[in-house]
């Protein structure tokens, strides 16, 4: 019969202070549960509020800023100067800056016979890497009569709202590419018609975007103007909610479309709340483990004479440490499994909320919760084993 802890169990005085033991179990259970639930909720909120918005791409936010129009600067030139752009680029919170260059010449757009619609238009251009959807056809060279246009999805939505009232047909995202738009470009130095072709829709930039090469050419050709006058600038930043960035923009009197970052703010606040909950959970776990450590130390101190005699008789210190430490493992395991089950129940209850149903949340806890569970179990084994070993070495 192999040697087991049962053989030496009567020699280990477990002590009569059951209250502190149960308090330890309870504390550990609550701490682990808090940690698991907050981790799961962090993931859930992240997935639930995941922005399909193309404003975010590759971990960067793309936001538009303009100069705040006040009574003082009203009527003046409020476009960004080259110096403004350089200053913006120098900000550590800003990764890249791209001005939206608008047309200086007059543009009139008609949609031909199918849609009897005619209006003055404004066109803008921006660096391609700031546009969320850039098809290969979004290029223009002098001599080309067809101008590719990237149209704002918001504009299409707005059009579809007022179109029926005006007797105009509503358009889907697919059909809009088949609409032929005639662009009548005119200025003091000439007039020319181009065929506008909508090649993509942009969710990020509310504008009618044309290739930069067309904008530069036409501004020069019709107006003989090459200066950059950008009333709007797009910035690429790691975090649009970064307080440093916000305070810099406020300080410079730059206007930021707050609606665009409101979603992120809510998400960030919610995630910070669950993060704080998680940190609190970790604190409770640490306290509970400390309580256990005291209990274990007390147990070893009380059994000191017996343990010393066992070592004198030839019991291996390693085996003794392992055996004493192992007695707690089932308790730890039960606590962690119970916390996992409760987390799963809470997660399933969370999924019952109507606003959650549309999101494709997994029915099982996130992998990070599982990994944390395994890590916590390994950590408790490690702490216990080391603590018992240290205490045993002290009594040898």
């Amino acid at each position, binding site marked *: 019969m192999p*040697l087991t802890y049962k*053989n030496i169990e009567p020699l280990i005085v477990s002590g009569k202070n059951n209250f502190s033991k149960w308090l330890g179990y309870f504390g550990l259970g609550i701490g682990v549960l808090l940690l698991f639930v907050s981790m799961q909720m962090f993931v859930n909120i992240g997935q639930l509020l995941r922005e399909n918005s193309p404003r975010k791409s590759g971990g960067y936010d793309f936001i538009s800023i303009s100069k705040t129009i006040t009574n003082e600067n009203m009527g003046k030139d409020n476009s960004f100067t080259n110096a403004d752009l350089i200053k913006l680029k120098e900000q550590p919170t800003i990764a890249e800056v791209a001005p939206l260059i608008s047309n200086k010449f007059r543009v009139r757009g008609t949609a031909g016979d199918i849609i009897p619609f005619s209006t003055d238009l404004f066109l803008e251009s921006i660096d391609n890497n700031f546009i969320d959807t850039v098809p290969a056809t979004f290029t223009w060279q002098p001599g080309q009569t067809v101008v590719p246009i990237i149209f704002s999805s918001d504009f299409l939505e707005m059009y579809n709202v007022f179109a029926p009232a005006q007797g105009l047909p509503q358009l889907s995202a697919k059909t809009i590419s088949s609409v032929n738009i005639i662009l009548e470009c005119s200025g003091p130095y000439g007039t020319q018609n181009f065929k506008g072709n909508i090649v993509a829709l942009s969710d990020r930039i509310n504008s009618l975007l044309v290739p930069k090469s067309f904008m530069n050419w036409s501004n020069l050709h019709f107006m003989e103007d090459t200066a950059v006058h950008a009333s709007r600038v797009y910035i690429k930043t790691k975090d649009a909610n970064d307080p440093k960035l916000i305070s810099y923009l406020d300080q410079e009197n730059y206007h930021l479309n707050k609606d665009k970052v409101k979603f992120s703010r809510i998400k960030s606040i919610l995630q910070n709340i669950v993060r704080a909950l998680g940190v609190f959970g970790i604190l409770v776990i640490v306290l509970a483990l400390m309580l256990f450590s005291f209990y274990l130390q007390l147990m070893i101190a009380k059994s000191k004479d017996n343990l010393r*005699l066992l070592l*004198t*008789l*030839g019991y*291996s*210190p390693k085996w003794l440490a392992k055996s004493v430490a192992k007695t707690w493992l089932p308790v730890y395991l039960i606590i962690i499994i119970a916390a996992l089950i409760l987390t799963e129940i809470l997660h399933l209850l969370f999924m019952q909320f109507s606003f959650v149903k549309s999101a494709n949340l997994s029915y099982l806890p996130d992998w990070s919760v599982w990994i944390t569970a395994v890590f916590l179990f390994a950590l408790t084994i490690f702490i216990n084993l080391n603590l018992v070993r240290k205490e045993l*070495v002290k009594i040898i």
Partner: protein
Amino acid sequence: MQIQLREVTPDNIEKEKRIVSQIWGLNVSINKGEHLHIVAPSGSGKTSLMHFIYGLRKDYSGSILYDNTDIKSVSIERFSTFRQNKISIIFQDLRLFENQTVRENIEIKRILDPCHQPEKIAEMAARLGIENKLNQLAKTCSYGEQQRVAIIRALMQPFDFLLLDEPYSHLDEANRKKAMELIYEECAKRGAAMVFADLKPLDFFKDEKIIYL
């Protein structure tokens, strides 16, 4: 296995005692199968010598070698395996688990490296006259009975060396004889060496090597 004492001298021994000693500061070898009777009056360091050899204390100069390995360099873990099956001891102060029964006290040693069946406990207890004490708590036994429990416990493991530190101090002549016979028998079975420390030469050791500490 061989145990060698190389110029072993306790750190706090008086010079006069060291000079007259046949062990302290000298080279002594103990081979498997040998019986060595160490005689010395109280306070001359018998228990210290036993504890040095058993690896419980290191407050000495010189070296003690187990098969040419200095035991001061042996890890606690490795020493525990020596104590499981190479060297056994009967302590002068017995060192029993007072709140355990006699049987449990012996069993805790037997299961460590079982060389005897559990029935052997009752058999040996019967030979030493404590068979009816087996289920009694050790602390409720007389010192003489406890001494016999310590003897049986020491014989429950395999060993090459048996250290006995005044093991019969509280036994009457008849029980001393029974215990000595059992110890001789068990040592013979294992071909083990016996290092016996006592205050005066005992009759059983008539023909054996006596060293004065």
